[in-house]
């Protein structure tokens, strides 16, 4: 484990760890895979936010994306579960240990196809979880089949054209009740880092759809998830600045052109407005934005929807403050008088 006191001279964060405490094992994904860039940003975000990696759990389903939790935060417990079912595993884990910070990594097939049922119900519950879809529009690990986020008319490497419309996971998440919904691009370091830091601050489900090109099976002409296509059609929602609660706000911003969002933990998120009337806490505006950019053949990136103070699933269930996994026998085995009372009622 690498959480010892760092060597002098190394850059450390507010809990005195250097970035090596946030790294994982060596990646086994293809060179140039967008997912590796996302892992790098996750490492940066947790490091810069000064999150204790021992307070983090990382989970995933199955697929290329779902291998990636092994490539960041080695000191954290990780769970590579079964295909499409990470949401349920994360739900159980967070019910047991609501004091942890959970990050789940999924893919577009893992979420949009086999896992769509669990995804839908995860969003409804607003479980405290950063849910990242590493979205490349295809199944990499089984050699390039289309996934449900592949665009209509997008061409596969073997020339087959996709004839079904895509699922917009962001629109779906907003519709279903997720309280933080963002879309980003693995190649946009600055935006992705800010979005991840805001997600770390958020309480409730943060659903991040990160377009992450597959260099091996989906990076050719005719693909709408290739690096060049994504760069050409990315429509950032303006600059995002994130200021964590433990840092002073020293940016100047114009209230007319910037929306400031106070996060539940006291951090601040500044979103430069694209349009005068765009309000990221307005569900209808968020849906309109997604549909309008889609009609233009573009996709909006940035924080699309945010509801910072919505009750999360742990609030809804009214759980005690002590994590359920830590409750002692005296708290969870009622006394004999309770059994006697029940028995009396059955006589």
């Amino acid at each position: 484990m690498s959480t010892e006191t760092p060597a002098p001279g190394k850059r450390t964060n507010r809990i005195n760890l250097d970035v090596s405490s946030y790294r994982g094992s060596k990646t086994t994904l293809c060179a140039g895979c967008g997912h590796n860039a996302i892992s790098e940003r996750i490492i940066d975000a947790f490091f810069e936010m000064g999150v204790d990696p021992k307070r983090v759990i990382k989970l995933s389903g199955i697929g290329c994306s779902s291998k990636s939790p092994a490539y960041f935060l080695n000191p954290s417990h990780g769970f590579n579960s079964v295909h499409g079912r990470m949401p349920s595993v994360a739900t159980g884990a967070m019910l047991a240990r609501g004091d942890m910070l959970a990050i789940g990594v999924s893919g577009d097939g893992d979420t949009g196809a086999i896992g769509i049922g669990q995804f839908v119900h995860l969003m409804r519950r607003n479980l405290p979880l950063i849910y990242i879809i590493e979205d490349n529009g295809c199944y990499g690990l089984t050699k390039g089949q289309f996934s449900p986020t592949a665009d209509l008319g997008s061409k596969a490497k073997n020339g087959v054209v996709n004839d079904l419309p895509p699922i917009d996971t962001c629109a779906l998440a907003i519709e279903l009740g997720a309280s933080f919904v963002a879309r980003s691009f693995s190649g946009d370091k600055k935006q992705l880092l800010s979005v991840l830091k805001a997600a770390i601050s958020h309480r409730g489900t943060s659903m991040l759809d990160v377009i992450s090109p597959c260099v091996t099976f989906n990076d050719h002409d005719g693909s709408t998830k290739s690096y060049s296509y994504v760069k050409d059609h990315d429509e950032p929602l303006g600059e995002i600045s994130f200021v964590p609660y433990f840092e002073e706000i020293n940016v100047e911003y114009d209230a007319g052109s910037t929306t400031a969002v106070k996060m539940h933990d006291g951090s601040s998120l500044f979103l430069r407005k694209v349009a005068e009337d765009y309000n990221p806490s307005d569900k209808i505006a968020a849906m309109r934005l997604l549909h309008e950019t889609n009609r233009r053949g573009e996709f909006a990136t940035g924080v699309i929807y945010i509801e910072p103070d919505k009750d999360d699933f742990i609030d809804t269930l009214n759980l005690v403050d002590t994590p359920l996994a830590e409750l002692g026998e005296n708290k969870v085995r009622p006394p004999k008088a309770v059994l006697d009372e029940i028995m009396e009622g059955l006589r």
Partner: protein
Amino acid sequence: MSSTLPSPAPAEAAQRSHVVNDFSIQIATVNGSGSQTANLVLLRSIFQMGVPVSGKNLFPSNIAGLPTWYTIRANHRGYISRKKEIDFLVAMNSETAREDVLSLDPGRAVVYDEPLKLNALRTDLVFYPVPFDKIVAEVCPDAKLRRLVKNMIYDGILSHLLSIDLGEMEHALSRQLGKKPKAMQLNMAALEGGRKYAADHLEKLDPYRVERLNKTAGQILVEGNAAAAMGCMFAGVTVVAWYPITPSSSLPETLISYMRKYRMDKETGKATFAIVQAEDEIAAIGMVVGASWAGARAMTSTSGPGISLMSEFAGLAYYAELPAVVFDIQRVGPSTGLPTRTAQGDILFTAVNSHGDTQHVLLLPASVEECYTMAMEAFDLSERLQTIIYVMSDLDLGMNTWMAQPFTYPEKPFDRGKVLDEAKVRELGASWGRYKDVDGDGIPWRSLPGTGTPAYFTRGSGHNEMAQYTERPDDYVKNLDRLARKFETAKTLVPLPVVESEAGAKVGFIAYGSTHWALEEARDQLREEIGLKASYLRLRAYPFTPELEAFIKLHDRVYVVEQNRDAQMLSLLRINIDPALQTKIRSVLHYNGLPIDARSITEAVKAQETPGV
């Protein structure tokens, strides 16, 4: 008006004019007609008179409109399995009345709704016509409420005909209705109306009656699912995820009511548990596995179709070595099968549930008391063995009402198994590996998130003893062999079979679960009717322990009695025992959806034990 005489055979009825505390009552109604209160009052009032009883609901997969039968058995010897023959029929359902009456043995009694004119069907039964609509109109002026109390009238009729104390009925009714004076008043009026009608108009011609005994003092009446729910609560369960399915739902639903009452933190009023109705059984087991991975005591409850859906996670939990408690309240399958009928049909499938090499521990409760105790044992075992424990109940045990001695408070503290703490981390140092067998029992030490102990990466894919990803053949074999060793360790921890040996017996019986009660009675029948001496081994868990082979060795012929077509436990037995013993094993099977009865076992065994007779 008087009862209709069974003209051809009054002599037989007269001969048997005193059948005391030994008969079955079947009440045939329409599902959704609100007969449950009346049936439970009838059951409970006999129980309160000190007579052993059992109540079984034979119901359709339907909310309202299809026929349903409730059978009550009273037996002074304490037999509480289903009695095959019906002695006393209450025919309230016009749809089934004809068939219900035609299937009775001669000399039996029928209370029926007068307009059905059932007395025209047969001449060898005792018929008691009752004008239910007329009586209910008299006792319940409000026409809208009549449907609710009509059934209480047959309780009143039976109170008179079977000599059931009306005061006991009133007491039973007050327990059902609690503090609802209006409902109490209405139902009492119906009870008394029925009793008065019977006293004034019906001449007692059947032999059946209840007399006070002292065989139920201090006992309780409870369903297996409620007993299991209690067990889970006292086992300290903290995370429950479930998906509605008959006949399992009443387990988590009862658990919810207990937990809300007894497991709210006194100081904060907050819950010391999370119960989630999941989107399906896959999500339910996923939540359980996630919660137990993070250190909580977690469970789910389901039935056969749910077990099927949980298969992939079952393999993951086996291979990643995560605890989980899964109740399987078995019903008839496959697929929907007969969802409201009972079976022991998931045994073979569940024992090896999942792909690849998988072995699971099964607990086999036979009584409501074992539903309670095995729930607690299941949590301890699953954390000790770091694997799924299936508790194989069934519809008969889970949803029907059983007599039992009051449950005892658990004395043993929880066994949370091998979980790393700081001291253990210091002791093991860098040599700790999540899947490393340091104690020789195949069980490794696990670490939990959030506890400050070393982390590991959990995965279903190939891993070595340090929990690192690997596809090396030797690592994989080593891991699978250790898992097999762990299953050997399970044999030393699971509940042992219960053996009742009879000196000199050449015949042995093996049974498990709810089959136990019918088998106990069948052993008595066989002893009394053909002088058969037989020993009995009741299995309480899989993997099997050495007692099983020893038992088979001691006998010439061993009958495995179970409630499925394919002799599932016998099959499991065959792959686990010395091949030389296999020729001794025979099978008695019951799989018609009804709870097994003693007579069926007795006849099947007689056919083999007395050839040519």
